[in-house]
Protein backbone atom coordinates (compact mmCIF):
# COMPACT_ATOMS: atom_id res chain seq x y z
CA UNK A 1 0.00 0.00 0.00
CA UNK A 2 1.23 3.47 -0.83
CA UNK A 3 2.22 5.12 2.48
CA UNK A 4 0.70 8.38 1.24
CA UNK A 5 -2.75 6.93 1.93
CA UNK A 6 -1.71 6.23 5.52
CA UNK A 7 -0.54 9.83 5.89
CA UNK A 8 -3.70 11.22 4.31
CA UNK A 9 -5.85 9.08 6.62
CA UNK A 10 -3.81 10.12 9.64
CA UNK A 11 -4.00 13.76 8.55
CA UNK A 12 -7.79 13.64 8.24
CA UNK A 13 -8.14 12.02 11.68
CA UNK A 14 -5.82 14.66 13.15
CA UNK A 15 -7.81 17.50 11.61
CA UNK A 16 -11.07 16.04 12.93
CA UNK A 17 -9.60 15.63 16.41
CA UNK A 18 -8.11 19.14 16.38
CA UNK A 19 -11.41 20.63 15.25
CA UNK A 20 -13.33 18.73 17.95
CA UNK A 21 -10.79 19.83 20.59
CA UNK A 22 -11.01 23.50 19.67
CA UNK A 23 -14.79 23.32 19.42
CA UNK A 24 -14.97 21.53 22.78
CA UNK A 25 -12.85 24.17 24.50
CA UNK A 26 -14.72 26.98 22.76
CA UNK A 27 -18.08 25.65 23.98
CA UNK A 28 -16.58 24.86 27.43
CA UNK A 29 -17.35 21.15 27.02
CA UNK A 30 -13.68 20.19 27.23
CA UNK A 31 -10.68 21.27 29.27
CA UNK A 32 -7.19 22.37 28.36
CA UNK A 33 -5.91 18.78 28.39
CA UNK A 34 -7.78 18.14 25.15
CA UNK A 35 -5.88 21.00 23.52
CA UNK A 36 -2.60 19.50 24.71
CA UNK A 37 -3.57 16.17 23.15
CA UNK A 38 -4.57 17.96 19.94
CA UNK A 39 -1.13 19.57 19.88
CA UNK A 40 0.52 16.20 20.48
CA UNK A 41 -1.32 14.45 17.62
CA UNK A 42 -0.55 17.40 15.34
CA UNK A 43 3.15 17.13 16.24
CA UNK A 44 3.03 13.43 15.47
CA UNK A 45 1.54 14.19 12.06
CA UNK A 46 4.31 16.71 11.36
CA UNK A 47 6.90 14.12 12.41
CA UNK A 48 5.36 11.52 10.07
CA UNK A 49 5.38 14.03 7.21
CA UNK A 50 9.06 14.82 7.86
CA UNK A 51 9.91 11.10 7.96
CA UNK A 52 7.99 10.57 4.72
CA UNK A 53 9.88 13.45 3.15
CA UNK A 54 13.22 11.96 4.24
CA UNK A 55 12.56 8.28 3.57
CA UNK A 56 10.27 8.62 0.56
CA UNK A 57 8.46 5.46 -0.48
CA UNK A 58 10.60 3.39 1.94
CA UNK A 59 8.58 5.03 4.72
CA UNK A 60 6.34 1.96 4.45
CA UNK A 61 9.23 -0.22 5.71
CA UNK A 62 9.52 1.73 8.95
CA UNK A 63 7.85 -0.95 11.07
CA UNK A 64 9.87 -3.85 9.63
CA UNK A 65 13.25 -2.13 9.35
CA UNK A 66 15.80 -4.09 11.43
CA UNK A 67 17.89 -1.01 12.25
CA UNK A 68 14.88 0.87 13.57
CA UNK A 69 13.96 -2.11 15.78
CA UNK A 70 17.45 -2.04 17.31
CA UNK A 71 17.32 1.74 17.73
CA UNK A 72 13.92 1.45 19.37
CA UNK A 73 15.38 -1.02 21.88
CA UNK A 74 18.30 1.30 22.66
CA UNK A 75 15.96 4.25 23.17
CA UNK A 76 13.80 2.16 25.49
CA UNK A 77 16.87 1.16 27.51
CA UNK A 78 17.89 4.82 27.92
CA UNK A 79 14.44 5.85 29.06
CA UNK A 80 14.24 2.98 31.54
CA UNK A 81 17.59 3.96 33.02
CA UNK A 82 16.13 7.42 33.59
CA UNK A 83 13.04 5.92 35.15
CA UNK A 84 14.92 3.52 37.45
CA UNK A 85 17.41 6.15 38.57
CA UNK A 86 14.68 8.73 39.12
CA UNK A 87 12.67 6.33 41.25
CA UNK A 88 15.75 5.51 43.31
CA UNK A 89 16.64 9.19 43.75
CA UNK A 90 13.05 9.92 44.70
CA UNK A 91 13.04 7.06 47.19
CA UNK A 92 16.33 8.17 48.77
CA UNK A 93 15.28 11.81 48.99
CA UNK A 94 11.91 11.01 50.47
CA UNK A 95 13.45 8.66 53.07
CA UNK A 96 16.55 10.59 54.00
CA UNK A 97 14.85 13.93 54.25
CA UNK A 98 11.49 12.54 55.40
CA UNK A 99 9.80 14.34 52.55
CA UNK A 100 7.40 11.60 51.58
CA UNK A 101 4.32 13.22 53.12
CA UNK A 102 5.06 16.59 51.55
CA UNK A 103 6.05 15.38 48.09
CA UNK A 104 3.32 16.04 45.55
CA UNK A 105 3.27 12.56 44.06
CA UNK A 106 0.38 13.44 41.78
CA UNK A 107 2.76 15.89 40.10
CA UNK A 108 6.04 13.98 40.44
CA UNK A 109 4.82 10.68 39.00
CA UNK A 110 3.29 12.16 35.81
CA UNK A 111 6.49 14.18 35.38
CA UNK A 112 8.51 10.96 35.65
CA UNK A 113 6.27 9.33 33.03
CA UNK A 114 6.51 12.32 30.72
CA UNK A 115 10.30 12.47 31.17
CA UNK A 116 10.60 8.77 30.35
CA UNK A 117 8.59 9.16 27.15
CA UNK A 118 10.45 12.30 26.09
CA UNK A 119 13.85 10.66 26.66
CA UNK A 120 12.74 7.64 24.66
CA UNK A 121 11.61 9.82 21.76
CA UNK A 122 14.72 12.00 21.77
CA UNK A 123 17.01 8.96 22.03
CA UNK A 124 15.23 7.36 19.08
CA UNK A 125 15.60 10.50 16.96
CA UNK A 126 19.25 10.88 18.00
CA UNK A 127 20.17 7.29 17.04
CA UNK A 128 18.11 7.38 13.87
CA UNK A 129 19.38 10.60 12.35
CA UNK A 130 22.98 10.51 13.56
CA UNK A 131 24.23 9.16 10.24
Amino acid at each position, binding site marked *: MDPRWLLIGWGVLTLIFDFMAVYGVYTSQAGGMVLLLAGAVSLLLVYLLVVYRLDGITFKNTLVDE*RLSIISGKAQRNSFWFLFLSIWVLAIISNVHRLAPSLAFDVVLPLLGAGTIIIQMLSFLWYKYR*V
Partner: protein
Amino acid sequence: MDSKVNNKLRLIRRTRDLTQEELGVALGVTRHTILALENRKYEPSIALALKIARFFEMPVEDIFWLEEERQGGV
Protein backbone atom coordinates in the same frame (compact mmCIF):
# COMPACT_ATOMS: atom_id res chain seq x y z
CA MET B 1 31.00 4.74 16.59
CA ASP B 2 31.98 3.57 13.12
CA SER B 3 31.33 0.00 12.16
CA LYS B 4 34.16 -2.56 12.10
CA VAL B 5 32.55 -4.03 9.02
CA ASN B 6 33.47 -2.15 5.89
CA ASN B 7 31.51 -2.30 2.67
CA LYS B 8 31.38 -0.97 -0.84
CA LEU B 9 27.63 -0.72 -1.00
CA ARG B 10 27.62 2.87 -2.23
CA LEU B 11 29.99 2.03 -5.09
CA ILE B 12 27.98 -1.01 -6.17
CA ARG B 13 24.70 0.87 -5.90
CA ARG B 14 25.99 3.72 -8.04
CA THR B 15 27.43 1.27 -10.58
CA ARG B 16 23.97 -0.25 -10.92
CA ASP B 17 22.48 3.25 -11.22
CA LEU B 18 20.17 2.80 -8.23
CA THR B 19 19.03 5.38 -5.72
CA GLN B 20 19.09 4.70 -1.97
CA GLU B 21 15.32 4.76 -2.05
CA GLU B 22 15.10 2.12 -4.80
CA LEU B 23 17.53 -0.11 -2.95
CA GLY B 24 15.56 0.37 0.27
CA VAL B 25 12.37 -0.71 -1.45
CA ALA B 26 14.08 -3.79 -2.89
CA LEU B 27 15.53 -4.82 0.47
CA GLY B 28 12.55 -3.91 2.66
CA VAL B 29 14.36 -1.27 4.71
CA THR B 30 14.15 2.52 4.94
CA ARG B 31 16.34 4.89 2.94
CA HIS B 32 18.02 5.95 6.18
CA THR B 33 19.22 2.40 6.82
CA ILE B 34 20.87 2.33 3.39
CA LEU B 35 22.49 5.67 4.24
CA ALA B 36 23.70 4.33 7.61
CA LEU B 37 25.13 1.22 5.94
CA GLU B 38 26.95 3.27 3.31
CA ASN B 39 28.36 5.59 5.95
CA ARG B 40 29.44 2.59 8.07
CA LYS B 41 27.24 3.68 10.95
CA TYR B 42 25.38 0.39 11.02
CA GLU B 43 26.38 -3.25 10.68
CA PRO B 44 23.67 -5.25 8.93
CA SER B 45 22.30 -8.51 10.27
CA ILE B 46 23.36 -11.68 8.47
CA ALA B 47 19.92 -11.83 6.88
CA LEU B 48 20.16 -8.30 5.49
CA ALA B 49 23.74 -8.84 4.29
CA LEU B 50 22.64 -12.01 2.46
CA LYS B 51 19.66 -10.16 0.99
CA ILE B 52 21.95 -7.45 -0.31
CA ALA B 53 24.32 -10.02 -1.79
CA ARG B 54 21.47 -11.86 -3.44
CA PHE B 55 20.03 -8.63 -4.81
CA PHE B 56 23.33 -7.66 -6.43
CA GLU B 57 24.09 -11.29 -7.37
CA MET B 58 27.50 -11.12 -5.71
CA PRO B 59 29.20 -13.07 -2.89
CA VAL B 60 28.68 -11.42 0.51
CA GLU B 61 32.41 -11.06 1.05
CA ASP B 62 32.73 -9.00 -2.12
CA ILE B 63 30.41 -6.42 -0.56
CA PHE B 64 31.23 -6.65 3.16
CA TRP B 65 34.50 -7.39 4.90
CA LEU B 66 36.06 -6.97 8.31
CA GLU B 67 38.17 -3.83 8.49
CA GLU B 68 41.27 -5.70 9.73
CA GLU B 69 41.18 -8.15 6.81
CA ARG B 70 41.93 -5.52 4.16
CA GLN B 71 44.66 -4.11 6.40
CA GLY B 72 46.43 -7.47 6.29
CA GLY B 73 45.50 -8.42 9.83
CA VAL B 74 43.84 -11.75 8.99
